[in-house]
């Protein structure tokens, strides 16, 4: 059967004709083989123009289209839906970004821009003929469970947001602490294994002594930060140093510390320096200000190397200074140590003045949040990558700041990297509502532009199995590689790396890419 191509040229109001000769483009399209319909419209993003295009598409019974418009993020959703109603498969539409690739960056070179636009149209026609229709499959979710690992600040916020979106939440908490959160809370429970894919995960959890299975549509990792003890020489001298959250807890129970309070940034001042973001500075400032306000006679010191409060929280610097909290900055050479002359005092060399200050420490508090030690086990069970500093690594920021590389698994709060309570709560809300919205749809879809193995060519060398970031390829019954369509994200890394050239990525085959490249290189430059 011969292809029937529709070519749509969007004038983008008047931006395109100001530089290019759209009539010449239309003529070129009309003269091309297999093109049955050419439409020039003012704006393809306008409903009326689009309806006209679709009317002609239906009338001429086109089966594929080349659309010369702007960036596909802007036009694709509405355009693909309209073409779907007109009976054209979404994978049979080739979008050409005329606006951002030709019109905007080549304002000063109209002739060369025209040549480029024509080459792009020819290449798109070549590619269009090679396209194959593809269908996306959908699968029912077996459950509407959102499983949240960790019942800290971000975990609770995530549970509230997910429940609000209509999901059933299950919180796994390692300790036995009680809290108010919607859904089911399983104290003394831990995640030990997981299988399945987006929308249909089966988790293995340990509750108390029992091992159980739990179905999950989405998973949120909210393990938070871990808390350590003092290290290095300070640890020998100071016995009752507390992490910041302990101080906060005591203050909530009206147990204000007696005597001076010294907040040190890291539990090991002389050792390895953490990154600036690894300290809960927002919380430190907030807690110390609250302490000073409730007990104005308490001497409060903040000893730090670098301080960076988040956003408008910087205003807290001034507030703290105004009510008499003393800030002492040190560098590594002048790290705080126990004063050799007076064992109940801390000697710090002030970075600004160069003087060695001797301050009494009644209660020593440290403000850093090291990564949670459980992250490793959880990352291993869920098969998601970890960051080099011990947190969970998020996927590309484009997928979303709270998503991991595996769709359907979210991460929030200090599990990513240390952050303040407020920020952790916001992130929890974000992860929770994303998971909730996703679960509410009730269906997961996959397929379309995915990889497929040509079994005869496969030599089962395991290269694809080792390379795929999503663990989609596996060695099947026939001792040949196969791709799990449900897991495939359509990146094509396995296709490029396969030494036997046995894998093909639908919609981006070698022929299609090379055909387009060859056609682009032909003609005038």
């Amino acid at each position, binding site marked *: 059967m011969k292809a029937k191509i529709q070519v749509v040229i969007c004038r983008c109001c008047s931006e395109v004709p100001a530089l290019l000769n759209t009539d010449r483009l239309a003529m070129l399209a009309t003269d091309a083989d297999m093109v049955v319909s050419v439409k020039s419209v003012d704006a393809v993003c306008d409903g009326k123009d689009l309806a006209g295009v679709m009317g002609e598409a239906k009338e001429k019974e086109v089966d594929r289209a080349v659309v010369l418009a702007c*960036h*596909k993020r802007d036009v694709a959703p509405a355009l693909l839906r309209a073409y779907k109603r007109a009976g054209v498969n979404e994978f049979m539409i080739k979008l050409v*970004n005329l*606006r*951002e*690739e*030709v019109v*905007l*960056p*080549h*304002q*000063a*070179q109209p002739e*060369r*821009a025209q*040549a*480029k636009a024509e*080459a*792009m149209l020819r*290449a798109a026609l070549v590619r269009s003929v090679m396209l194959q229709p593809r269908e996306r499959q959908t699968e029912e979710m077996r459950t509407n469970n959102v499983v949240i690992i960790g019942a800290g600040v971000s975990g609770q916020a995530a549970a509230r947001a997910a429940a609000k979106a209509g999901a059933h939440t299950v919180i796994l908490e390692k300790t036995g602490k009680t809290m108010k959160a919607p859904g089911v809370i399983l104290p003394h429970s831990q995640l030990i294994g997981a299988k399945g894919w987006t929308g249909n995960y089966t988790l293995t959890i340990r509750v108390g002594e029992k091992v159980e299975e739990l179905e999950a549509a989405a998973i949120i990792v909210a393990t938070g930060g871990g808390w350590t003890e003092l290290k290095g020489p300070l640890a020998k001298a100071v016995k009752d140093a507390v992490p910041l959250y302990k101080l906060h807890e005591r203050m909530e129970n009206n147990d204000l510390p007696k005597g001076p309070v010294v907040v040190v940034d890291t539990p090991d001042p002389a050792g390895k320096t953490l990154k600036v973001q690894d300290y809960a500075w927002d919380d430190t400032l907030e807690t110390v200000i609250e302490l000073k306000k409730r007990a104005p006679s308490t001497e409060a010191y903040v000893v730090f190397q670098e301080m960076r409060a988040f956003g408008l929280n910087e205003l807290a610097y001034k507030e703290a200074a105004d009510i008499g909290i003393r800030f002492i900055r040190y560098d590594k050479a002048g790290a705080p140590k126990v004063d050799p002359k007076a064992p109940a005092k801390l000697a710090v060399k002030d970075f600004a003045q160069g003087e060695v200050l001797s301050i009494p420490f009644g209660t020593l508090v440290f403000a850093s949040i090291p990564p949670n030690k459980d992250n490793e086990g959880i990352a291993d069970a869920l098969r998601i*990558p970890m960051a080099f500093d011990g947190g969970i690594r998020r*996927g*590309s*920021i*484009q*997928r979303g700041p709270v998503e991991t*590389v595996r769709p359907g698994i979210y991460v929030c709060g200090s599990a990513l990297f240390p952050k303040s309570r407020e920020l952790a709560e916001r992130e929890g809300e974000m992860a929770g509502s994303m998971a909730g919205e996703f679960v509410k749809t009730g269906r997961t879809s996959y397929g379309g*532009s995915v990889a497929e193995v040509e079994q005869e060519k496969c030599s089962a060398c395991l290269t694809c199995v080792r*390379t795929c*970031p*999503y663990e989609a390829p596996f060695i099947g019954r026939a001792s040949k590689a196969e791709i799990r369509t449900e897991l495939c*994200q*359509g*990146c*094509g*890394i396995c*296709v*490029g*790396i396969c030494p036997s050239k046995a894998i093909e*990525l639908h919609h*981006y085959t*070698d022929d299609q*890419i*090379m055909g*387009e*490249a*060859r056609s*682009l*290189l*032909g003609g005038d*430059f």
Partner: protein
Amino acid sequence: MADRKPKVIGFVCERHGMEAAVLSARSGKQHDASVRLVEVPCTGRVDGIHLLKAFEDGADAVFVFGCLEKNCYYDTGSIEGRKRVGYVKQMLEEAGIEKERLEMFNAASSNAWMFPKAVEKMVEVAKKLGPIEKGGDGQ
């Protein structure tokens, strides 16, 4: 052949790479019209044969433009892409073609300045080296 225009082709990933290119266009940055782009889902999809065929089809310079390695949309895609560019460079050298004709660039989608810079560099290389001399037949 003073007025011969250089031919540059870029394989651009449709995630950060294309976003960066689009953002540079939208922020009014201009670049040479000698460059044509092929969109691929990920730079990891770029195969050695695509790059070599592009040279065979007459490109003076070829570049691959993808996500930052630590923030690739497909996790390890741009690292794989760089490896592939590396070995094609080696092949070019063995075939007696200057390896500067092929380059890999990385950008985050907000790095609008990266794309014109990459194009400028490749156009410069293409202008300096001229077309690839094909053996014997004087083309």
